[in-house]
């Protein structure tokens, strides 16, 4: 019997290694390069040696590929100057490779709360560069977003994920611009009780986002299933219809009412 390996329980580095063809993982700017954020120490935060971002080359179904991943365990997978530059740089290099007629497949593993507040404007600029690079690259090849970690994707990085050609989401991952705590803080308990975890997942979880037409594939939390979906979308690229909401969203509805409405249509 086949044993299921949880993708969500792997570290960012292990996730990238698990998706690339066996034995082909080669990390760029690895932890031993010590490209740490220079801004965190003065804010009493210990910096991680890879700034929470993994960039690796390898092959995907025999084709050259670059996969980048954010580490949701480190400061919520937030994007600062260094990690953001690693991602944008990798995507820009891939676009340059295509411009030289070198095929390079691309996937981004999002597990991120968004911009790193401690690096403020530098994080915003980094996410803008990432968005630019995704748009430039998707003219050459499908850029695949995978949201299948424990954080999900929020804030500026949810915009980057939405710009990708196609996306793969799992049940445990959530996708949204504002996180539930922010929604509750800004709009009040009547809008959303952030402690109501079943509601948060029903309203923003991968299953719902897929049902809404905002994700291309809905997958179980299984490395083999996610790899197969990635191969299908990144390599055997049958033209992918742009991701577009299947139902109009009424902005006057509260999230709870929206949840009830969607539940009525999709259950």
């Amino acid at each position, binding site marked *: 019997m086949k044993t299921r390996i949880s993708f969500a329980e792997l*570290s960012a580095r292990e996730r990238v290694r698990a998706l690339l063809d066996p034995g082909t993982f080669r990390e760029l700017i*690895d*932890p*031993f390069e010590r490209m740490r954020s220079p801004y965190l*120490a*003065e804010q*009493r*935060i*210990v*910096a*991680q*040696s890879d700034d929470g971002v993994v960039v690796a080359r390898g092959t995907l179904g025999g084709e050259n590929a670059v996969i980048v991943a954010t*580490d949701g*365990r*480190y*400061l919520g997978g937030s994007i600062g100057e260094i990690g953001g530059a690693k991602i944008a740089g990798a995507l820009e290099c891939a676009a340059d490779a295509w411009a030289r007629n070198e095929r390079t497949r691309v996937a981004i593993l999002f597990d991120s709360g968004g911009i790193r507040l401690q690096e403020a404007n530098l994080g915003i600029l980094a996410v803008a560069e990432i968005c630019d690079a995704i748009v430039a690259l998707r003219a050459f090849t499908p850029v695949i977003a995978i949201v299948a970690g424990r954080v999900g994707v929020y804030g500026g990085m949810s915009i980057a994920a939405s710009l990708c050609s196609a996306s793969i989401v799992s049940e445990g991952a959530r996708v949204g611009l504002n996180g539930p705590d922010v929604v509750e803080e800004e709009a009040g308990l009547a809008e959303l009780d952030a402690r109501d975890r079943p509601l948060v997942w029903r309203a923003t979880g991968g299953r719902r986002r897929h049902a809404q037409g905002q994700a291309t594939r809905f997958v179980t939390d299984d490395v083999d299933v996610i790899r197969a979906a990635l191969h299908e979308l990144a390599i055997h690229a049958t033209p992918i219809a742009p991701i577009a909401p299947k139902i109009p969203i009424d902005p006057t509805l509260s999230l709870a009412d929206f949840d009830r409405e969607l539940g009525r249509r999709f259950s």
Partner: protein
Amino acid sequence: MIETLEIINEGGTPIARRAHIGVVASGNCELLIEPTSEPRARVLIRTSVRGYEAAWRAVIARFFERHPIAARIEIDDFGATPSVVALRLEQALEAAS
């Protein structure tokens, strides 16, 4: 501010390869271990929790009593307990052997 400590242990046998273990997250730490040409182990610690130098020295000393190695070790700590640090050291050594 962040506290920085350096602990040196003289002598020891060289390790085979470098390894990277762990994560900078609450109650956890990241650890880099690398071979060195020096005949000693040099441990650099950066921690967000100040005032535990004695505990660090005790955990590191016990590790080198069990495993007299020559290596360069860097620990980025976010409030790992002594037992977690000890496990991370053992894990790093296993990966570097």
